[in-house]
């Protein structure tokens, strides 16, 4: 089985640390993948609301390239990319009209049926016991609130992965790192997503609620698997503090970063220093662990 890797635009820019930590962690765990040659944008949030044909073609182009490269699977770590790829693939598979249109547009025939997998599936299927085996750092003091957001496990009928309303797969991974996953209520609530820039007020309120609920349930870190969520929850904390003065900086980590920490990697190596909120994650978490 050959994994293909579709980083998507965010992972090369605002979420560079996600890309860095993913590569580091998979390398350590012995999971190998090949980046899709000449990949392009998946269409993201804008394409499918403006031009349906375009959104299908953008996503299918990447899937087609991966197929031509002889890959069987595509890992899409960004939740939005994952969502776009799997939905477009499903549309093309089930609607001969769209299929033909897209095929004509790209002047190819879609033959290979690739499996699109998200970051949770990747670790769940091929890394869970590897993480436990190679664990170096004690993380028992880490009380993580696993945040899925809207896209990671939805729509259930297409992803056919985990429970869309009450997912539990990230918790399993977090527990494999030795950290404790808290039971909380906002794991699938919206963070405001693409309103990040245009409606900052909505984002701040929604994100704040998420962080507050995590704190209320005893969490000391928020674990995410989506660049957009991370942006909203991490970058907007300063604005939150302006609106709600009592707000305190709360750590938000990518899942891969948490795994990296558990594997004993350095914060810098994992790119954690690129986060907006200055937070000495490793120290704090380790201290907690030592105490706890």
């Amino acid at each position, binding site marked *: 089985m050959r994994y293909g890797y579709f980083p998507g635009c965010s992972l090369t820019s605002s979420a560079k640390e996600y890309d860095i930590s993913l590569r580091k962690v998979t390398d350590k765990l012995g999971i190998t993948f090949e980046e899709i040659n000449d990949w392009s944008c998946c269409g993201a949030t804008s394409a499918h609301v403006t031009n349906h044909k375009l959104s299908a073609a953008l996503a299918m182009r990447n899937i087609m390239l991966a197929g031509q490269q002889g890959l069987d699977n595509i890992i899409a770590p960004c939740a939005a990319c994952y969502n776009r790829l799997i939905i477009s693939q499903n549309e093309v598979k089930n609607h001969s009209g769209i299929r033909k249109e897209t095929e004509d547009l790209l002047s190819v025939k879609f033959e290979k049926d690739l499996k699109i997998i998200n970051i949770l599936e990747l670790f769940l299927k091929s890394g869970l016991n590897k993480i436990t085996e190679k664990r170096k750092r004690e993380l028992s003091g880490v009380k993580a609130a696993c945040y899925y957001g809207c896209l990671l496990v939805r729509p*259930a*009928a297409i992803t056919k992965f985990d*429970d*869309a*309303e*009450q997912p*539990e797969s990230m918790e399993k991974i977090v527990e494999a790192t030795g950290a404790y996953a808290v039971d909380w*209520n906002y794991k*699938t609530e919206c963070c405001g997503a693409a309103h990040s820039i245009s409606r900052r007020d909505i984002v701040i309120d929604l994100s704040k609620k998420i962080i507050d609920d995590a704190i209320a349930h005893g969490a000391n870190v928020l674990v995410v698997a989506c660049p957009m969520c991370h942006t909203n929850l991490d970058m907007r904390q300063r604005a939150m503090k302006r609106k709600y003065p009592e707000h305190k900086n709360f750590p938000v980590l990518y899942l891969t970063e948490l795994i990296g920490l558990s594997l004993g990697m350095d914060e810098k190596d994992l790119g954690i220093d690129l986060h907006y909120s200055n937070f000495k994650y490793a120290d704090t978490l380790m201290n907690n662990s030592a105490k706890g």
Partner: protein
Amino acid sequence: MKIGVFVCHCGENISSTVDCLRVADLCKSYSGVEYSVDYKYMCSDPGQKLIKEAIHKYDLDAIVVGSCSPHMHERTFRNAAVSAGINPFMVEIANLREHCSWVHDEIEASTRKAIELMRMAIEKVKRDKPLTKINVPVTKRVLVIGGGIAGIQAALDTANAGYEVVLVEKEPSIGGHMSQLSETFPTLDCSQCILTPRMVEVHQHPRIKLMTYSEVERVEGFIGNFKVTIRKKARHINEENCSGCGLCITKCPIKKKAYNSFEEDLAFRPAVYVPFPQAIPNIPVIDETVCTYYKTGKCGMCLKVCDREAIDFGQKDTIHVADVGAIIVATGYKLYNIEKKSEDSIYKGYGEYGYGKYRDILDGLQFERIASASGPTSGEIKRPSDGRVPKKLAFIQCVGSRDDSKGISYCSKICCMYTAKQAMLYRHKVHDGEAYIFYMDIRAGGKMYEEFVRRAIEEDKVKYIRGRVSRIYEENGKYIVKGEDTIAGMPVEIDADMVVLATAMIPQDDAGSLARKIGIPYDKYGFFNEAHPKLRPVESTTAGIFLAGACQSPKDIPESVSMASAAASKAIILFANDTLEREPVVAKVNEDICAGCFYCMKVCPFGAVEVKDVKDMNGIVYKEVAYINQGVCQGCGTCTATCLSKSIELAGFNNEEIFAEIAAL
């Protein structure tokens, strides 16, 4: 063999495009045909008389009638043949009307086809063998599985018709779910008040043998002749001695180790218990899993207090065998426990609703117990967690039902009504309380049902919100119900004190294994399949086994009761004769050449194929062959085509006959 050929004109229906005279004339030239004639109306009295006279006059052995479809008049002509002394299966019909004259215009072509059809029938009838109807004796006793309202009704109806009934219930008492209910919609009369008299009637009925705390182990045989093995589980109480005084129960020191399943786990029960005060029979059961005696060998308090020596710690399960002629399956339903999640099950659970996590989130039956006057709160609406009276109550309908993404696509049918009823009861008991109902649609089809729901909305001010709930979580002692009001197009949040989930009705856990034991098909959920969705809704596809109540699909009480009565009448119809007459179109194995591969057994939809040992002169089994039980075989013939060595023949459609038809093409 002397064959008589009769060609019917059917007025002008056949003769307008088929030259009937020519057909009849030509048939005379076929070997074996003794007499051939055409006539205007063969099915009329004079026509039938013509046939009968010809049979006598020409001493015919078989007849071929060229007329309308056999589905129309096959019986008519067979009866005519029988009254003239010919076996009814020595009659063949050539379908000259529906398959010939009515569908072709050209006289030459249709006459030609008519002749060929006649020729095929003549060739077939030459190979026909006289068949006699199969008579199967009938044991006039019925087994009812399940002692809920459906089982009770079926048992009473059958017994009152004069037949013996064996009623098997796996719980210590009959009564089923209906005994747990508080009031019933749409009349709001007390459930136990109407049920208890019927339970007592069952208990006292001379023709009903009640076997509670018992389960069906095995069913063998076929319609009219089932042999049922029943395991009667050990109660550890001698039923003959026990007077039902209840002293053992009150003295039992183990008070809080076992949940009371009758109270839907909202209360505890002692190690020796009756499920509920009105239980039938009123004989306790000792729960081995919690009783101190079984753990340490000590205690024995009940033994000491019982002055009738009814306590029997050494009692073992007993096996009982009953011969019955019919089986009525009325095993009912259970509620979908949404707390449990299992990857491979079709029941995926609803973790987001917090059921099982928060004590004040209840399912429908739990709320029934809370609302019931005999329940753990004596009918007062209180929160199980802290005993406070909830001031705001949220009801959520369609939890599990009508949700493809989580597995169950069907509608559980009763939830709309009972939720309205429960909200109404709450409003009657807590006057300042608010009741919210999240619904998808309100399905209130039934006599006085819609009026009932309107009453809840209009008189009792129950607030209906159309929309699904995405999550329920606790915040400061309240339960935040997050959902959407699809009419207002707004997200809603209700901070309720208590939430009642109308979880789906699903079959009993062991429905599938019971179905396999008794040999009836079931759907992917485990509901038993009826023989025909419209015309045979209370029969299973296995002859002699009938269905009643919610084991077939979600049903409310009146539907269950009517289905039970229908099932009972089916059994009574079966018992109206001493023997059962069956069409002789059944398959038969030639044991000499059967190679014993049992492919026939694998393809038989009715389980009619059995293994038979063939012994040599010394009594040693030297091969196994297939044997087809004539009582069970329905005559489809799938086995005959599957059999590689052609050791099976279907009477009435045997291969020789079909080959003759092909040859006569």
